[in-house]
């Protein structure tokens, strides 16, 4: 290769292809160098920021998980307390019921109307308390995994009929009609624990009645959706569920704000128990709000094969 021959881009081959800078270039190199140093500084700063962010993130997570553990322990302690209290309450409540029943039947001496009236009211209050304690014990069983299920082929119509006829007198006295739509259609049997399935339907109907303030109707509908499940609907034209309550409604001890204000009774455990039962059957439970008023609860339960 001859000397003095340049490549097409003008670089001199005598310098091995390396461009030796002119003075102007040296200045520009220095500028470049300063730029690079600045950039490096910026990047290092970014890395340091990232490290700090990582540290903050981890420490926040650790604090959260510590707080969670504490909450879990508290929740456990609360559950244990409730369980013990419920067990302890059951015996004296039965005792009170026994005593009041004897009194109201006049077995301990004749009562005048006023006395009978007072005792009757006491019996009702006591019954409500017993129902609450029973709900608490149910929850305790669910949480301890002691709720045994006995599955069999069950006639859903029979269960709905029996619930409605039990609840009818009280509901109608309060101005609420109970209706079983399409009662005479043929429904396939479901695969369920009969008494537990009954508890779900009873709970939904009682709830519906409770949230109708004056007069209204609660209707139960059974639908064969064609798939592997039957769908049961309990619809009311009551006060509805406030927006802020909708996410928590299947939780434990939950009572909607309007329910508390309106002094309806109830333990706040019914829907928790119902949803647990439905899930253990392999079904689903949910609700929809009516356009103007009322609420519909739906649940599915597998058909018997």
């Amino acid at each position: 290769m001859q000397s003095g021959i340049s490549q097409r881009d003008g670089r001199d081959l005598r310098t091995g292809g390396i461009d030796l800078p002119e003075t102007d270039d040296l200045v520009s190199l220095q500028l470049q160098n300063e730029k690079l140093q600045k950039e490096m500084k910026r990047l290092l700063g970014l890395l340091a920021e990232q490290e700090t962010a990582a540290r903050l993130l981890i420490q926040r997570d650790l604090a959260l998980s510590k707080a969670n553990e504490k909450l879990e322990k508290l929740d456990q302690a609360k559950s244990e307390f409730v369980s013990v209290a419920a067990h302890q309450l059951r015996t004296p409540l039965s005792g009170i019921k026994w005593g009041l029943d004897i009194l109201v039947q006049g077995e301990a001496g004749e009562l005048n109307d006023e006395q009978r009236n007072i005792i009757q009211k006491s019996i009702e209050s006591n019954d409500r308390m017993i129902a609450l304690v029973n709900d608490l014990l149910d929850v305790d069983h669910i949480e301890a995994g002691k709720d045994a299920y006995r599955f069999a082929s069950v006639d859903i119509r029979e269960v709905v009929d029996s619930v409605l006829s039990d609840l009818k007198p009280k509901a109608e006295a309060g101005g609420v009609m109970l209706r079983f739509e399409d009662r005479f259609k043929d429904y396939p049997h479901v695969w369920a624990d009969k008494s537990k399935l009954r508890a779900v339907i009873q709970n939904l109907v009682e709830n519906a009645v409770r949230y109708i303030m004056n007069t209204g109707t609660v209707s139960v509908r059974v639908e064969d959706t064609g798939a592997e499940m039957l769908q049961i609907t309990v619809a009311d034209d009551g006060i509805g569920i406030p927006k802020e309550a909708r996410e928590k409604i299947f939780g434990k001890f939950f009572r909607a704000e309007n329910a508390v204000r309106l002094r309806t009774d109830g333990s706040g455990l019914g829907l928790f128990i119902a949803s647990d039962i439905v899930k253990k059957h392999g079904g689903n439970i949910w609700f929809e709000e009516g356009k103007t008023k009322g609420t519909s609860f739906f649940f599915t339960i597998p058909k018997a094969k």
Partner: protein
Amino acid sequence: MLRAGIGINYGDDAFLVGVNACQEAFLKLGADTHAAKLIIVFASVKYDQEEVLRGVRSVSGGVPLAGASTAGEITGAGSSKKNSVAVMVLASNTVNFFLSVAEGLKDHSREAGKQVADQVKADAEKLGEDLRFFMMFPDGRAGNGSEIVRGVLDSLGEHFPVAGGASGDDLHFEKTYQYCGEKVYSGAVVGIGFSGEFSFGVAVEHGWTPIGLPKKVTKSEGSVLYELDGKPAIRLYEDYFGEENARELKENVLAKNAIMYPLGVSMEGKAHLLIRDPLTVDADGAITCAAEVPEGAEVRLMVGSVEKAIEMAGVAAAAAKKNLDGKEPRVAFVWSGVARRKLFGERADEEIRTIQKELGADVPIIGFYTYGEQAPMNGEIKNQEQCNPEFHNGTVVICALGE
């Protein structure tokens, strides 16, 4: 033909538990009993190990047996809540199995790894069979797991497909056992070579991602990590956690926060990260991990969650199945790191359910919670050049056999 039957049993009498688990496995196998070729036993250390094997042997005839003690047995029924014995009977007239064992892991990990593979290879060659896959159960408390894997590869070739799980002892971290033939070993590695007609898919996943900057391992020895960037290793945790939170790592073996934030180690010149679970921390701040952390490697803190870890088990199962090239999975082995079980707690079954769902409800599953998993990086077995078996922590390894 490739079929498997699996049995699991609990109780107080080790011999009887062995008998019952094995009988159930044969019962599940049904009509294919005559073709039984391999028995695999995974058992809790709660039981007298020799008695368990005696029980199994009393009803298994002379079928070759391999297995290990565990940190929890796994079957399709989920993660065993009680201390159990799980037995699998594998029947086939198209697959051949070659068993061997090598002792002395504590002082000669690599040699023992080579020895067990050499023996398996020699036995296969004697019958004119080509080995296609190697399964191993090394002691999870003795020796250096990474070195054992290297020893196996010294014998079978750098890119030979290997999978398995290191034996455990129900989180006592004292002594673990391996089974081969009639005998119970400790400090040994059991190997099973597979030859014949079958397809297999291996996958390994964890679900942790790195956070923060990498630190260089400036001093380590085997699985003891002394210094990172010239400072005591525990500083890494103290730095990110705060000293108060990092104290838990010094007080408990395999502490909760060590499980949630394990170390990710990248070997020099390699891009992938291997998970390392910190087991203990000494007074000088050195961290003993559940596997090797070599000098020169880079270490990063990893973050994860129960949900992600479970999700990745499903990803692993789907990948293992896909690797079967359209063949049906007939049996699947699951090795899940012990830290995962501790992390999942009562949700451990979710991992198994996720795996079962991906593989198919009828595929028999057996496995255990390990003190270390072995599998090629990324479960790569197709592209032989990329098949690089490693010793892992914190992963779930799934190995599906199909035809």
